[in-house]
């Protein structure tokens, strides 16, 4: 069993507000992070991810529960005593210090010899491509550069845990792919246990070993990118993770000698009972209403039992996004080859059983993913 570095047990965060009802930002959070793991806290604004990060860092009090880091209970400790390095969303560079001195700041108070500090700073600056600005002041560099400097300051330290709050949001798009690769490599090579917060699921997928999807203070699912994509625990995770988002439709279900999903105002997906494994069929049970979902990349275009009108055909250089009009909404399909279909024409498409996700209509919980029950 891998060594657990950080454990959160039943952690709650309640914000008291004068004159209004208290807000439960984090509800009974349980999470265990292994040594050297890269974890993303992913969710829309207000979901509790930043509150969680700040509780781990020590900038917010824990309303209930325990936090353990490297074997020590830390939820009562001051931030400086936790041996945690943090890169803040607002950069928080010290204005009177040069970028170099900002990055070296924490190292200088440790016992490291100055030659070693110098080379450590140089290395991390080269990684994040901020060597040219090392001797400038925070007020004279761009937002993207400030963000990288703030990141460098956290990464250069030697800590038990690295906390990064929206580390790459301001970066120029051209730099993102390369820096992501380098950052990931650094974290993996040095086995730096790290948690970063983001609302961008593309970033979470790119960097993290596991992603904790949060909504409304509740942890929805904590799994690797593959698992989240192929086996989302509920409708929220299914539609939040993935770009383009999963296509979902309400449907009436018939689970008898044929398995049919009749999409409201839309096509009927009809399968022979033998095509659907018994595990899936029993998971769906006797429900008459379900929500069916299919990922854009799994929609087969050009042939099939269904056809629909093309609303848009968008070629993006390395892939094509097609929007079809289905059930009054858009069904989006992504193809890595160009598709010859003009807007307004009709195009055939099909959804195979192994691409279909089924969810419970009232709770949103996943019932089946493709050929496996959830």
């Amino acid at each position, binding site marked *: 069993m891998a060594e657990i570095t950080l454990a959160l047990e039943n952690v709650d965060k309640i914000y008291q507000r004068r004159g209004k009802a208290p807000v439960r930002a984090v509800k009974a959070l349980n999470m265990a992070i292994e040594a050297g793991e890269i974890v993303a806290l992913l969710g829309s604004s207000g979901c509790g991810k930043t509150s969680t990060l700040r509780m781990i860092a020590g900038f917010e009090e824990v309303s209930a529960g325990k936090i353990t880091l490297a074997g020590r209970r830390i939820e009562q400790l001051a931030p400086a005593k936790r041996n945690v390095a943090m890169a803040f969303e607002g950069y928080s560079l010290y204005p009177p210090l040069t970028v170099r001195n900002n990055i070296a700041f924490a190292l200088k108070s440790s016992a490291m010899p100055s030659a070693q500090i110098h080379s450590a700073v140089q290395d991390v600056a080269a990684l994040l491509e901020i060597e040219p600005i090392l001797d400038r002041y925070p007020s004279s560099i761009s937002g993207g550069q400030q963000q990288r400097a703030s990141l460098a300051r956290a990464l250069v330290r030697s800590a038990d845990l690295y906390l990064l709050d929206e580390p790459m949001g301001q970066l120029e798009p051209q730099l993102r792919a390369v820096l992501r690769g380098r950052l*990931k490599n650094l974290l993996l090579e040095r086995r730096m246990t790290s948690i970063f917060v983001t609302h961008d699921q593309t970033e979470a997928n*790119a*960097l993290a070993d596991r992603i904790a999807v949060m909504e409304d203070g509740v942890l929805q699912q904590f799994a690797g990118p593959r698992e989240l994509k192929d086996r989302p625990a509920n409708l929220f995770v299914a539609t939040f993770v993935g770009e383009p988002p999963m296509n979902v439709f309400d449907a009436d279900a018939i689970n008898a000698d044929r398995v049919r999903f009749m999409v409201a105002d839309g096509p009927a997906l009809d399968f022979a009972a033998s095509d659907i494994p018994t595990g899936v069929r029993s998971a769906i049970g006797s429900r008459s209403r379900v929500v069916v979902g299919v990922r854009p990349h799994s929609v087969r275009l050009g042939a099939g039992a269904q056809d629909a009108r093309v609303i848009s055909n968008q070629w993006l250089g*390395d892939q094509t996004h097609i929007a079809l009009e289905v059930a009054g909404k858009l069904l989006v399909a992504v193809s890595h080859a160009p598709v010859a279909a003009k807007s307004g024409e009709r195009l055939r498409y099909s959804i195979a059983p192994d691409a279909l996700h089924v969810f419970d209509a009232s709770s949103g919980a996943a019932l089946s993913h493709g050929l496996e029950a959830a």
Partner: protein
Amino acid sequence: MAQMAIERVSKRFKTNTVLDDVSLSAETGEIVVVFGPSGSGKTVLLRLIAGVEDLDAGSISLQGKDVTNAAPEARGLGMAFQNFALFPHMSAFDNIASALTAGASSKSQILSKVEAVARLLKIGHVLQHAPRELSNGQKQRTALARALVSDPRILLLDDPLRNVDAKLRYEMRMELPSLLKTSGSTVLYVTQDYKEAMALGDRIAVLLDGKFAQVATPAQVYREPASLDVARLFGDPTVNVIPTTPTLENGLPVFDIGGASIALPSSYAHVAGRACVVGVRPESIAVSEAFASGAFPVEVVAVTPLNEKSVLLLRAGDGRELLASEAGEGELTRRRGPACASFDRDAMLVFDAASGLRIAPQSH
């Protein structure tokens, strides 16, 4: 007759020349995307066409008439702003209707037109709300509705999807083309997102350093970029850039990567001996464990999934970093470590090292 034409327009702010002698035209019903990085002057261009900013040189004509000195209200345009610019003290209905109240429409005509465009944009149920009660997505649609309701011949859209969250942005990107085509207006659409540009534009005008580096169809801009700067702006991850001076080997132009010799198509024979930059898009690099002819050794440093693709950070023998992307579930089988990479020969781009301009292949 072009619906919209700007001729030799320049605009300066103090010492900074934002637009330098630019010209562009758009035909009836065409969607022209003005694309460029932030600060490149795209919004300024739109404001000049709208008349809310004065130009320093040049002329603007709309529907054949010179409007360079005309007031904004006389130009007959519709415009949607990046930060919505809704009137906070009016309901959504009145916001949209403001585009009609200056004209001669009767109250009942205004009512039916506003309701029709609200239905189209799915905001019919929030028309009586004040802007502060609307979500960002609803505000954006209200701003769009205001631009569309007067059925303007020319529509200016200033990065309308910028301040909207990712899911809604994607949805609107899919719906906008048919919406705009149905309206029949000539559209000038400004964006920084290359995917939006390629998805929406009949033509893309790439604005760099105050000039149009290229004005062409999406396919041309992607496959035949006019310069390295243009090539860099399209594609995620960005195109790989390899500065090199090719030599001739057995009549074929070749260049070196980490000790291996990579051949360019014979149509590039004329670049031998010239200082060049070779551009290879990530999707044109194939990575495999096994050696293939024409491949060269690399180390796979990191594998990052990117929306159904995998992006591989490669390090070649000479320390050069390259990004490769492949479709699908490669990340399951991909491991960090030694591998081989090869380039799709026909997809390579060659640029002149000094000017950055693309060198076209020559057929013999």
